[in-house]
């Protein structure tokens, strides 16, 4: 019987288990490989920098989870911003901090309803601060969650994801090409390939912002200054739009039913939050162009926003109601340029304070009557 399982045999023949190796020294090839890889990477980095890309933190699920965890770790009394991309792009943390003395936690996620996060914060005993909820009608009243995985990662982050995020963040502020938009196959996919008859493809949303370490997002200057890029961004927003007249009755019935469910979710979450002393402020950021047509078409204000504010009883700030929220430049119809976002944040902060004070005064007056 062979005793090869035994690990205490003193005369094990090493060669028996060794793998075959190339019979040519590989040291020189290794050096060439390192030089070639480094040279090509430098060229790739220079290419993207010449395109206008600068290093920025990636809008990753792990980064969102890190920010969400701040509430669990002693910052539960902070002002927290949730919502979709408009809340993310338009609310500038530096300006808010300058005006208020406190830096908010930015938890807005593009293409995603904030309702799951709102419900989670409502159930979180650690959270007792102020909640600013951005309402982008299509997403909020449709319940769509493009970035659901960010929330899932916060709930179930594995040690490998935790570590991977931190390792990644060591490289992110230094490499322009290290961005979701400039991954090799994303770049290949976005080339002008011949269209195949009968195949419907949606255009990917392109890079629009640069992100800071705590998810402070500022519009990328290329969106503001490059007319071609700006036109592309607008085209993508309008891509695949179907007027509501072309929807069938069943689709519309389902959408209305779904809208009601989303409002009910918001009402329930707001009630829970207010019961524990959290102030909730709903904010409807401005939009124009394609959105000036599509949003009222699918989500008329009277049937959505007005119902939401009435049923929740929370403070609601709609851009159509306040001059301070009007007159900003939205280069691609949906989000503000970086400098405009600064101006808007300052105005929004003071508007919120004023409306809160007014609401508090009204409550006091009602109580005294």
């Amino acid at each position, binding site marked *: *019987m*062979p*005793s*090869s*399982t*035994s*690990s*205490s*045999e*003193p005369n*094990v023949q*090493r060669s*028996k*288990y*060794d*793998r*075959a*190796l*190339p*019979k*040519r*020294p*590989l*040291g*020189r*090839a*290794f*050096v*060439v*490989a*390192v*030089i*070639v*890889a480094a040279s*090509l*990477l430098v060229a*790739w980095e220079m290419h993207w920098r010449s395109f206008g890309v600068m290093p920025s933190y990636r809008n990753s*699920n792990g980064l969102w989870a890190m920010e969400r965890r701040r509430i669990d770790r002693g910052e539960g009394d902070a002002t927290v911003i949730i919502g979709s991309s408009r809340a993310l792009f338009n609310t500038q943390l530096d300006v808010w901090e300058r005006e208020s003395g406190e830096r908010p936690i930015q938890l807005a996620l593009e293409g995603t309803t904030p309702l799951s996060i709102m419900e989670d914060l409502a159930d979180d005993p650690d959270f007792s601060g102020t909640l600013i909820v951005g309402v982008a009608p299509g997403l909020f009243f449709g319940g769509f969650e493009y970035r659901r995985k960010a929330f899932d990662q916060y709930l179930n982050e*594995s*040690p*490998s*994801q935790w*570590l991977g995020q931190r390792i990644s963040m060591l490289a992110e502020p230094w490499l322009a090409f*290290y961005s*979701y938009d*400039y*991954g*090799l*196959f994303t770049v*290949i*996919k976005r*080339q002008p*390939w*011949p*269209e*195949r*008859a*009968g*195949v419907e*493809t949606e255009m990917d949303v392109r890079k629009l912002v640069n992100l800071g370490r705590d998810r402070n997002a500022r519009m990328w200057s290329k969106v503001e200054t490059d007319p071609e890029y700006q036109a592309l961004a607008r085209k993508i927003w309008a891509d695949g739009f179907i007027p509501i007249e072309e929807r069938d009755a069943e689709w519309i019935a389902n959408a209305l039913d779904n809208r009601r469910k989303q409002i009910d979710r918001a009402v329930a979450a707001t009630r829970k939050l207010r019961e524990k002393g959290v102030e909730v402020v709903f904010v409807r950021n401005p939009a124009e162009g394609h959105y000036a047509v599509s949003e009222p078409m699918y989500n008329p204000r009277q049937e959505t926003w007005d119902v939401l504010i009435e049923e929740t009883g929370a403070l609601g700030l709609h851009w159509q109601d306040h001059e301070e929220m009007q007159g900003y430049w939205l280069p691609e119809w949906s989000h503000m340029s970086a400098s405009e976002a600064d101006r808007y944040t300052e105005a929004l902060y003071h508007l919120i304070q004023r409306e809160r004070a007014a609401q508090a005064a009204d409550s006091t007056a009602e109580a005294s009557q």
Partner: protein
Amino acid sequence: MLALHNAPLSWTTKKTNLLIASYLFYAAWNPPFVILLWLSTVVDWHVAKRLFTEEVKSKRRMLLAISVIVNLGLLGYFKYGQFLLENFIALVALAGITYQPPDWNIVLPVGISFYTFQTMAYSLDVYLRRAEPSKSFLDFALFVTFFPQLVAGPIVRPTHLLPQFAVARVATPQQLYWGLALMTIGLFQKVVVADGLLAPAADAVFGAGETLHPLDAWLGTLAFSGQIFSDFAGYSTTAIGVALTLGFGLPDNFRFPYAAIGFSDFWRRWHISLSSWLRDYLYIPLGGNRKGNLRTYANLMTTMLLGGLWHGASWTFVVWGGLHGLYLGVERWLKARVGKLAIWTTLPMQILLALLTYFFINITWVFFRAPDFATAWRLIDTMLTFETAGEKVLPTVFITQTVVTIAVMLAVHWTMRERRLDDVVARVPGWLTGLIWGAMLMLIVITQGGSDAFIYFQF
């Protein structure tokens, strides 16, 4: 780990470092599941020791049963519990009983099928008197958990790995460079080929949920054939490379399988460590080909059905295994009758047979990848009838990526069919090896990879 392994420490300390690193590596997915590794380690260590000294046949069987029950019990609970429950519900429903149990909601420990089979091989080797038990608990624990191949193979035999832990091993410079080269190749296969080039087409087709145009159905299936190979072989190659940088040799797990001529040849080239495990611990103990023709066919089918079930708790995997069992049976039958004709050895016929093998392998991949039978039948129907009424889902870019990648992959497999990579590299000028190596490194980095786990982690 490399720095620690090359530091002036005792061999026992280095092995302890490797063991701790292996546990940390496994805990990186889900820390509590390390307990499963400990349980498996302790049970098989004690069982094997007792098995070695025990002479009474019934007691030996009982000891083996303990090992099998613990290992397969863990596998059954975590991997097949939901499957068994669903089938039980369906079965009692046939009798008119409605049974609604609570949700199963059990998370599958990563790589459980791999390390379960690896530890079972140890107890079985000792039971079958093929080998003695290890004399060092540290070595055995490291054998169970050795991190390079812990979660997705190769499934290494105790007779291959344990002796390597006996004497101090540090990689020579050539082993280190070749290990790094293999890691680059493995990561290139996974990140660039599997996830970047092929996964988009496969995902689009298998996730379509409707009847597709035959071109889309075929390209999606071909893309998956390349994706599953590049994903799994990529992991194996990386694991082999990592082990080599530490001075350890792991066996090959793939040998250019899409150049296989026939299905027995395919299984000598695909997931070799599993097919040889099934051969040695299932097919041969069942009687192999020693008990007559009918029994041989039955043994082949049983082995492949269980091999299918090893991959996943679903009837689609069983069908995948069953098809391979059928193919092997038919091939055996044909070989006995017309296998010796000279025509089979001509080059055109060899190429034709290889393509025919690849065609039939692709049919099996449909069942392997499809989320359910409805999807699988829909695709198979379209692929075989060429009915063009279905939807088109693949844009030009995915079609181009798939066609070019699969063509290159088949050409590489055919060219390398009788060759070894190390021989080829030895014949190529060093600067060219470096150029290709550097380009692969660059492509890995700029692809940026997503968070797509290796497909075989779920097995």
